[in-house]
C-alpha cells in the first residue's frame, strides 16, 4: 500500500472511532520529559569496518582487497562507505557520527540470535537475557510513563522494549475498527486471559490514536517530502514507513521509539548487500530527521548491531561473524561529526582471536551516557539496574 492510501484508510477509520460514544478520549498527558530517544537494531551484524572505514590504519587495505572502494574521507583516519553519502550533510553539521570498536559483552559463539538477545537485554551474558530489555528497564525508572510513551514499531517481537513498564507495539500496516458492542464482547471473552486482553485493548487504543492524528500526519508528510534531503528517499519502502510512523508518534506524546533494520548478514558479495543495507539506514535517519522537524534538535538516534564481522574478507567476497563493530548515532541532541572510541589496530596480534576487530569499549556505555546526559538518569541506576555489570567509564561526550 502506498503512503497516501495508507493514510486515507487510517483517516476513514478515525471517523468511525471518533463517532463512537463508548470510546474514551486518549489522554494527551503532559510529556514526562522532553528529549526523544530512538533505538534502531541493525539485525544480522553490520560490518562496522566497512561502514566506517579505518583508512588510516596501515593493515586495513590488505584485509579488504575487494571491498575497499570509493571511501568518503571523514577524518583522515576514518572514512565512510559511499552508500552513507546522503548523511554527509548531517556529519558536517555535527548531527551524525559513529562509535567504533564496540561490542556487547557477548563473545565467541557468534550466534545472531544470542547476540541480539544480549544486545537487547543489555545484560552481561545470555543468562536471564530473555526476560526484559534495557530500554524497558530504562522506562521503569522514568517518571510518568504511560501506554504510548514508548513505541516498539514493526512486525517482529523486540526484546528491547519488552518488560514490566508499559510500551506500545504497532506496525504501520495494522488497522482495527470495532463496533462498541464487539469491543465489549471481545473484552468479555478475553477477560480471563490477560495476555490476549491486554494486547487487544492496546490494539484498540493505538488504532484510535493513530486515526485521530492521521489528518495532521498527512499534512506533515507532504511538508516532509518537499525537504531537499528527502528527494532520493523512496517513501514506499518498509523501513521508511517505519521511520515515518515513528516520527509521527514522536512529534506527539511518544518519547521512545525502537525498530529494526534487517539485512546486514553479508557473508556473500558484501559490496552489493551492504550498500543496500546502509542505504536503508541512511533513508531511515533522513526520514526521522525530516519527519521530526524541530523535534530533531532534542532527539538522539542510536543504531546498534549484535556484533561486528571478521576483519578479513572471507572466501566469498563477504565477511563472517565477528566481535568488535561500530555503533552509528544521529540527532540534534548528539555531538556528531566524530568517530568515538579507542582504536585497537588491525595487525594480526591486535585482533580478537586473530580474526575480529578487538572491542575496546562495551557498546552499552554509549546509550548509558545518553541516558545520563540527555535524560538525567543517575549513573548508579544505570550501572545497577539498566545495564547490570556495566562500568560506564569516562564520559565520551556523546550528548551535545
Amino acid at each position, binding site marked *: 500500500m502506498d503512503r497516501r492510501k495508507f493514510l486515507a484508510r487510517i483517516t476513514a477509520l478515525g471517523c468511525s472511532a471518533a463517532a463512537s460514544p463508548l470510546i474514551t478520549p486518549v489522554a494527551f498527558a503532559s510529556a514526562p520529559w522532553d528529549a526523544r530517544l530512538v533505538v534502531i537494531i541493525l*539485525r*544480522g551484524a553490520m560490518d562496522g569496518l566497512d561502514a566506517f572505514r579505518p583508512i588510516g590504519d596501515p593493515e586495513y587495505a590488505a584485509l579488504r582487497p575487494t571491498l575497499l572502494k570509493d571511501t568518503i574521507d571523514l577524518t583522515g583516519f576514518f572514512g565512510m562507505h559511499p552508500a552513507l553519502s546522503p548523511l554527509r550533510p548531517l556529519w558536517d553539521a555535527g548531527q551524525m557520527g559513529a562509535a567504533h570498536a564496540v561490542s556487547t559483552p557477548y563473545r*565467541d*559463539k*557468534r*550466534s*545472531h*540470535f*544470542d547476540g541480539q538477545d544480549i544486545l537487547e537485554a543489555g545484560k552481561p551474558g545470555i543468562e536471564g537475557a530473555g526476560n526484559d530489555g534495557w530500554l524497558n528497564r530504562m522506562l521503569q525508572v522514568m517518571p510518568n510513563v504511560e501506554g504510548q510513551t514508548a513505541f516498539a514499531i514493526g*512486525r*517482529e*517481537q523486540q526484546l528491547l522494549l519488552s518488560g514490566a513498564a508499559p510500551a*506500545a*507495539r*504497532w*506496525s504501520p*500496516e*495494522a*488497522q*482495527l*475498527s*470495532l*463496533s462498541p*458492542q*464487539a469491543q465489549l*464482547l*471481545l473484552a*468479555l*471473552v*478475553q*477477560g*480471563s*486471559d490477560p*495476555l*490476549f486482553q491486554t*494486547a*487487544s485493548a*492496546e*490494539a484498540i487504543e*493505538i*488504532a484510535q490514536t493513530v486515526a485521530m492524528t492521521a489528518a495532521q500526519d498527512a499534512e506533515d508528510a507532504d511538508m516532509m517530502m518537499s525537504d531537499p534531503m528527502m528527494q532520493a528517499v523512496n517513501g514506499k519502502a518498509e523501513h521508511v514507513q517505519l521511520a515515518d510512523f515513528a516520527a509521527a508518534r514522536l512529534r506527539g506524546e511518544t518519547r521512545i521509539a525502537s525498530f529494526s533494520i*534487517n539485512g546486514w*548478514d553479508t*557473508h*556473500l558479495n558484501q559490496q552489493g548487500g551492504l550498500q543496500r543495507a546502509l542505504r536503508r539506514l541512511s533513508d531511515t535517519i533522513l526520514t526521522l530527521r525530516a519527519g521530526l522537524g524541530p523535534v530533531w534538535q532534542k532527539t538522539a538516534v542510536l543504531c546498534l548491531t549484535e556484533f561486528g564481522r571478521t576483519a578479513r574478507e*572471507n*572466501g*566469498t567476497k*563477504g565477511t*563472517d*561473524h565477528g566481535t568488535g563493530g561500530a555503533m552509528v548515532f544521529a540527532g540534534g541532541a548528539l555531538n556528531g561529526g566524530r568517530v568515538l572510541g579507542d582504536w585497537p589496530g588491525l595487525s594480526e596480534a591486535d585482533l580478537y*582471536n586473530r580474526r575480529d576487530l578487538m572491542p575496546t569499549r562495551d557498546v552499552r556505555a554509549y546509550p548509558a551516557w545518553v541516558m545520563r546526559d540527555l535524560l538525567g538518569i543517575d549513573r548508579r541506576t544505570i550501572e545497577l539496574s539498566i545495564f547490570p555489570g556495566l562500568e560506564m567509564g569516562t564520559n565520551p561526550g556523546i550528548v551535545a
Partner: protein
Amino acid sequence: MRFDATIAAVRFGTGLSPLFAPPINAGALVAELASAPQFEIAAYSQITPTMQQYQAAARASREARGSDDEAAMAAAFRTVRQAGNVVYNESLRATFARSVGAQIGFSARLQDFWADHFTVKARNVPQRHLITGYVEEAIRPHIANSFGAMLRAVATHPAMLVYLEQFQSVGPDSRFGKRRGRGLNENFAREFLELHTLGVGGPYTQTDVRELAELLTGLTYQPQRGFFYDKRFAEPGAETVLGVTYDAADGIDNILDAIDALARHPQTAAHICEKIAQYFVGQNADATMVAAMTDVFITSEGWLPAVYATMLDHPAAWDRTLRQIKSPLRFMTSAMRALGLSGAQVVNTNGRQTRELLIGPLVVMGQPWQKPLGPDGWPDNGADWVNPQGMAGRISWAMTAPREFLKTRPPDPRNFVLTALGDLATQDVIFAASAAEVRDEGIGIILSAPAFQRS
C-alpha cells in the same frame, strides 16, 4: 490425563471441522503419517522456471534495453515472472489446503514444524516460488522417517546450500580455492550446529564451526545436475568436529558420516525433542515428557514416528490447559477449517482472494509467508505472537474474512461456537456468540477468543 479427542484435533491436528470427525485415538494421528498427501505441490527439482531460468530471463531483458529485441525480451521475462507467480500462489494455496482439508492434520503440523526447523528463505525474487518445493522435496517425505535421513536430505538440498551459502564455500587450500583465491563461508556450518542439530547451548566451539565448515566444502549443486559433491572445492586434510576426526581421503562419505554423527548426538536428541514438545504443548514442556522422547530418539537412532508416539503416550500431552498459542498460519487454517471450507475450496481461491485473505493478513499478523527474519524461523514461544499489532490483524481478519471465503453470510454464531471449539467452549464465549449484533462480529469474537487462539 489420557487421550482426548478435542485436544487431539486442536493441539496435534489442524483443528475441529464440521467435515471431519475428530481422531478416535492417538494411533490415528501417527497412522495419518502413512497416507499420501492430498493437494499436489511440485517438488523443487520439477519446478519451472528454475532460479537460473528466472535470472537468465531477467538478465536478457535488462541487456536488451534500447535494442531491437527490447520488447520481445521484456515479454519473455514477463512470461517467466508470471509462471513463477503461478507456482508461488498455487503452492501457497496447496499448503493451506493440506491443513484445512486434512482428515486430522497431524502430518500438516509436522510439515510446518520441520519446514520451520530447517528454514530456507528466498534470498531474491527468482527463488521466491521455489521454497514450498524445497519443503515438498527435502522435508515432507521424511516427517515419518529418521531424523538423520531428513538431515541428509536438507544438508544436500540446493535450496539450503544456496540459502546458507554453502555452495560457494571453498576450501582455501583446495584446487579451486588456490587457483581462484576463494575461501570458506562459515554460515551453513554454524547454523547446522546451532539450529539444525545440537542447539546453541550445545557442546561446540568456534573451532568446531571452522572445522565443520572445512569439512563441508564440496557440497554444491548445478542447475542441470542438482546436488553433487565437487572435490575441487574440498579442503584437503583431516577435520575434527566434536572430537571426531574425519579423514578427507573419503570425499563425501566423510561429510555424510559427520551429518549422521551429529544427527545421532544425544545433545541433538535433547534439542530436537524439546523443540517438538514445545511446538505442540507450549513453552516449558513437561520435563518427563521431553526426557522420554529424548530416550526414544537416542535408542531408535532418531526414528521420528517413535518420538511422536512417545509424546502422544505421555499424560502431559493431554492436559486440557491450553498453553500454546497458534501461529497466524495455524490460526487462519484452523478458522477456515472450522468454517467448513474444504481443501478443494482453498485450492480454488482466486488470485485476489489469495492476496487479500491469505498473504496480506499473514503480514499484519506478523508471519509474512515464508519470510521469517532468519534461519531460526518463527518464534518458538507462542506468546510472541500476541501483541497489539498482531491482535489487530487477527481480530480484523476474524471479523471480515469468513464472509469473503464463504461467499455468503457466515453461520449462526450460536452453532459455530460449538463447531469451532467443541467442548473447549467456555460460558463466556457461548454467551458472546449469542449476544453479537451481527453474525460477522459473532464469528469474529469466537475466533478471537483465547479458547480458539490457544491450543
